[in-house]
């Protein structure tokens, strides 16, 4: 049992997301930062879809059983407090590192110094019931997560899957196996002109129906992620509103579609998006770019860069490598 003693914001149980759920009107769900989610599970030598935790702020836990974790995504201080010979010892760790925790240890994650969210991978994953092949929960859907779609809050306890210690690398010489203890993500944030982050998007859906002016405005101005963003959608602030078009019927929404509502402020739909939406869509932000977008703080500026689907596919697989 792992006990969450204190957390600033809700902690979400995430995994690869629901399968074959869309026709029931059930959201796909899944991690916000898929690169970080994959990385923690790779660090822990387990299936890349093993359930993990998504953390957005300071939190601390007590481990009542031994466990192995790895943290990735943003940057924050990780501290593990152990009681040895009646004295408390605190060791600090960095993200992208495998951390072994013994029963009775407290571990805490500090304020995010970089990025907006962290993924805490746990060896063996989290033990929670599966719905549509997933342990994700969305509060409005009332199922999954800790039960009734609930995230983990202060005082909640949860069980973890079968504990498997990580670190036995067989007969591989230790200087090779040690390399795995500190990974660096392969694609670093690419910053374009004047240090502005570039977020790729693929023009599709109703892109051709938007006016030339709207398409120009979408790619030519600096934008910021709004504070009202959540797992359902990242609300984007653009100082010049993008003229929208009229669309009558709802349509099925892919991960990362960029909706332009009548107020002209784009919304990039996240993993917990509803299955269908009625606003016109100007394009989609591919997964690897979405991972960068969800880590941007509200005061960081970015620019949307159109890429064709071939380029997006190539970059997607480069990022997976």
């Amino acid at each position: 049992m792992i006990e969450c003693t204190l957390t600033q914001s809700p902690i979400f149980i995430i995994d690869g997301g629901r399968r074959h759920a869309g026709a029931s009107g059930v959201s796909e769900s899944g991690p916000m930062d898929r690169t970080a989610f994959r990385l923690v599970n790779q660090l822990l030598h387990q299936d890349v879809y093993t359930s993990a935790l998504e953390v957005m702020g300071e939190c601390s836990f007590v481990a009542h059983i031994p466990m192995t974790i790895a943290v990735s995504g943003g940057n924050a201080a990780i501290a593990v407090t152990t009681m040895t010979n009646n004295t408390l010892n605190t060791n600090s760790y960095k993200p992208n590192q495998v951390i072994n925790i013994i029963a009775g240890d407290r571990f805490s994650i500090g304020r995010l110094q970089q990025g907006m969210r962290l993924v805490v991978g746990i060896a063996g994953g989290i033990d929670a019931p599966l719905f549509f092949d997933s342990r994700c929960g969305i509060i409005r859907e009332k199922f999954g997560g800790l039960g009734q779609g609930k995230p983990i809050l202060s005082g909640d306890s949860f069980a973890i899957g079968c504990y498997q210690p990580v670190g036995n690398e067989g007969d591989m010489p230790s200087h090779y196996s040690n390399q795995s203890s500190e990974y660096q993500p392969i694609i670093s944030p690419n910053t374009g002109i004047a240090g502005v982050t570039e977020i790729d998007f693929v023009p599709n859906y109703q892109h051709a129906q938007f006016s030339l002016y709207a398409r120009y405005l979408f790619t030519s101005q600096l934008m910021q992620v709004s504070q009202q963003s959540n797992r359902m959608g990242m609300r984007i602030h653009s100082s010049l509103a993008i003229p929208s078009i009229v669309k009558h019927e709802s349509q099925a929404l892919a991960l990362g579609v960029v909706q332009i509502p009548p107020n002209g402020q784009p919304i990039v739909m996240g993993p917990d998006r509803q299955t269908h939406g009625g606003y016109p869509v100007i394009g989609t932000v591919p997964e690897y770019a979405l991972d960068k977008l969800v880590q941007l703080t509200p005061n960081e500026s970015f620019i949307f860069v159109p890429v064709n689907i071939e380029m997006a596919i190539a970059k997607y697989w480069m990022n997976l490598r």
Partner: protein
Amino acid sequence: MTHLVKQKIVAQWVTPTTLHCEFGELDCTVNKALLIGRCRLYLYEHMAIKLADIVPGFNELLVQFIPSEIDYFADLHQVERLLKQYVMDSSATISNNASVSTQGPGKRGITHIPVDFGMDYDLVDVAQRLALSRADLIAQFCAIEFSVILNGFMPGFIYLSGLPDKFHLPRLATPRLKVPAGAVAIADAYCGIYPQRSPGGWHILGVTEHVLFDIDRSTPASFVTGDIIQFYPVMPAVPVITPILTAKIAPKIRSSKEAAGD
């Protein structure tokens, strides 16, 4: 129906794992939705092992692949080929008649759903706007055979087609913050049922106790594309009580109902 065959089904990759298949314009929503629903099952029959999900839309199918199974060029062409082949083969069997859905997903015939028209939300207002009496509106509404287009917007929310033109009303100017669970409502060309309490901007005609989505069932959503639904009016559920007790208990029941119904 043959004009659909001439029109293209266009498949394109919209994300590195999602294929968007757009179906050309068609006059009749019922049959297009039916067709899209059956195309979805047909794709599952032929390439289920590669798929993570297929989300049906009003005019499209969103085919989500398992990343490790993708072969971009071959899959695009296979999906397009399968869809075109299915549309070609079935164009003869799906007619413009809404009630013809004896094969495919809508095998179950007509599902009759009880609706309590007693709690007055928008019923009187809608009756006034349509220049009908309250009883006529209920009678005419309950005579309609609706087809399920799809589940969308929230788990188990069904969009129903088959609403006659004269019932078409724009959405409420100000959406309600709380629509009760089971609300049977209309907006534009559609009728819908809210599976759980939520905000919403549709005109509520009545409330049903029919469960639309139950996560504990092996198939959580009650309806699939192509199912036929007809509503029938019921009296609000009041337990059978002897006349002597009625006077004492009835006010209690009424007050608890008011509290629950907001």
